[in-house]
């Protein structure tokens, strides 16, 4: 059995104007030591998916359906107390903006020690010793100095290293990283990503990496999920998705990478923008922006079609696969 299995997860936001469904039918699995990337544009529901695993979606959002099986237990049904035991202990998180993630009025040491003491019965000295050990693990310069410093005394890259160290404190099974490098300089981004990858492999950590950077996904993850308007539209091994994307949306994302463009020319882009959650079009949510959209795309929601190791939710792909199967049959 997989370490984490998300089944048909659905998340709704109860707004004054009515309920809005932010996530629909999200299913994926993560094995011990496996690295999974979730990609998509802003507003696709990547972060909501990440936060809902730890039941941390802020009100008025709530999990309205599906299961999140972790170690055989459904996290969506745990009491707040049982959930608290999972958070930071078995599954920990890394947030997007290191400048905002650490509490400005508490020292780094306080923020590390409290996490250890929330989950284990150890004294302060021992907790500080473990904290220091983790700071060394994330290769922060002069780690001894850092425990008594306040966040404002550290650079963005150092803060993110500390946040990673906090995530590692209790040797979790899974780390969920929500765009961990978006707020950093490009050079620091690479360092942090390398560190994360190295730690995941050396500690046999499961990683769920939320990002809109396909380059990072291909560098770090083994499996990838592409999301659009609250749904998964394509998932499979990262290599296959990057090299042979099936869904027109994924193809569009890859074409939009600067590396794909011709120097001096305008960069490729997907026309239009993601629909707001309360106005998701009928049928395939992507059809108004899709170059290949057909009559059926406007009416019917596409199911997943297996293509190689990947699954894509697209009528076009389904048609092509069906055609191919027919051709093989007649042969």
């Amino acid at each position, binding site marked *: 059995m997989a370490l984490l299995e998300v089944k048909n997860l659905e998340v709704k936001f109860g707004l004054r104007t009515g309920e809005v469904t932010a996530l629909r039918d999200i299913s994926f699995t993560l094995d011990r030591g496996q690295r999974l990337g979730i990609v998509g544009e802003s507003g696709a529901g990547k972060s909501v998916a990440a936060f809902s695993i730890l039941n941390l979606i802020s009100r008025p959002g709530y999990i309205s359906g599906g299961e999140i099986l972790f170690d055989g237990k459904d996290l969506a049904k745990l009491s707040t107390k049982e959930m608290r035991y999972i958070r930071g202990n078995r599954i920990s998180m890394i947030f997007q903006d290191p400048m905002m993630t*650490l509490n400005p*009025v508490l020292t780094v040491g306080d923020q590390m020690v*409290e996490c250890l003491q*929330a989950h284990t019965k150890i004294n302060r000295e021992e907790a500080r010793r473990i904290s220091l050990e983790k700071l060394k693990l994330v290769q922060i310069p002069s780690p001894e100095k850092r425990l008594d410093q306040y966040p404002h005394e550290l650079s963005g890259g150092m803060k993110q290293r500390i946040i990673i160290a906090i995530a590692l404190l209790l040797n979790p099974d899974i780390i969920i990283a929500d765009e961990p490098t978006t707020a950093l300089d490009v050079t620091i981004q690479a360092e942090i990503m390398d560190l994360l990858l190295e730690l995941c492999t050396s500690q046999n950590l499961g990683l769920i990496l939320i990002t809109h950077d396909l380059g990072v996904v291909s560098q770090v993850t083994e499996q990838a999920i592409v999301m659009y308007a609250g749904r998964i539209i394509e998932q499979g091994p990262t290599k296959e998705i990057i090299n042979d994307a099936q869904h027109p949306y994924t193809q569009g994302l890859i074409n939009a990478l600067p590396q794909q463009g011709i120097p001096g020319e305008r960069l490729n882009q997907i026309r239009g923008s993601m629909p707001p959650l309360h106005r998701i079009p009928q049928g395939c949510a992507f059809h108004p922006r899709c170059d290949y959209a057909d009559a059926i795309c406007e009416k019917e929601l596409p199911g997943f079609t297996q293509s190689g190791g990947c699954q894509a939710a697209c009528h076009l792909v389904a048609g092509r696969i069906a055609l191919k199967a027919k051709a093989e049959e007649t042969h």
Partner: protein
Amino acid sequence: MLAFLIRRLVQAFVVMFVISLISFSIQDNLGDPLRELVGQSVSEAERQALRDELGLNDPFLTQYWRFAKNAVQGDLGTSYFFKEPALDVILKKLPATLELVFGATLIIVFLSVPLGVYAAIKPNTLLAKAVMGFSIVGISIPVFLTAIMLVYVFAIELGWAPSYGRGELVHVMGYWESGFFTADGLAHLILPSIALSSIMLPLFIRLIRAEMMEVLQSEYVKFAWAKGISPKRIYFLHALKNTMLPVITVGGVQIGTMVAYTILTETVFQWPGMGFLFLEAVNRVDTPLIVAYLIVVGAIFVVTNTIVDLIYGLVNPTVKLTGKQSH
């Protein structure tokens, strides 16, 4: 730290100069002190002689210079009515006012923090809604009306607390007589303290609630949840410490303002403090006393704000009192 205090001292000096100039220049418009000073029977010639003697006929700048020269030596003039140094008259009344302000501050600190935090954490509960509703009422009703209502309900109708004066006092030191050490003194302190806090308490509850709600939405509080920290620690350490930063700043200014509000409270409760004295001085056109009062209140403002800045520096690690912002 030393540099900070020196800079503060210079600032205080400038502030005090401006206050003294303003308060000194309005005194001409308060009425003729001679009318209060001498009876009807004194002749016009004698009045003129007295004016000359008091220096009231000198040009404004000469008068101010004389005042300022004496003021830096601690002499703020002599009260026309009490025939005593104005500063001494005020300082004798200072303990009563400070005890009243202290009582009100205690009420504000011990009620606004728990109520504000509760209203922020559980905004949809009946209690939170009731607190917010009452706070609007509290802010809207003027202090003197609250004071009169308190006297009517709790002193006259219910007879739970005395309605005027300071009650039994204990001599502490100098001319400091305190009502904090006797049951009677404390009983006398209750209603005036509540009246004085009636504006600031709701204000602080609302301020703390609003700040706390904003802090609870912050990334670092979300991260604390993600770490599996106990709710108690998140609310009362992570969130509250950040909530208190702006509250401390506003609080410092408000303590000063409260000294000013004592004029109303002390008048209704016949509390023998500075505010009551000030109102009497205005009625008597006792200009030296009025000027001295304004200067003392100005000084209290400056001192409380300096103390608040020091406390702020202790709570907020990003503020260094040397004045240099460490990067």
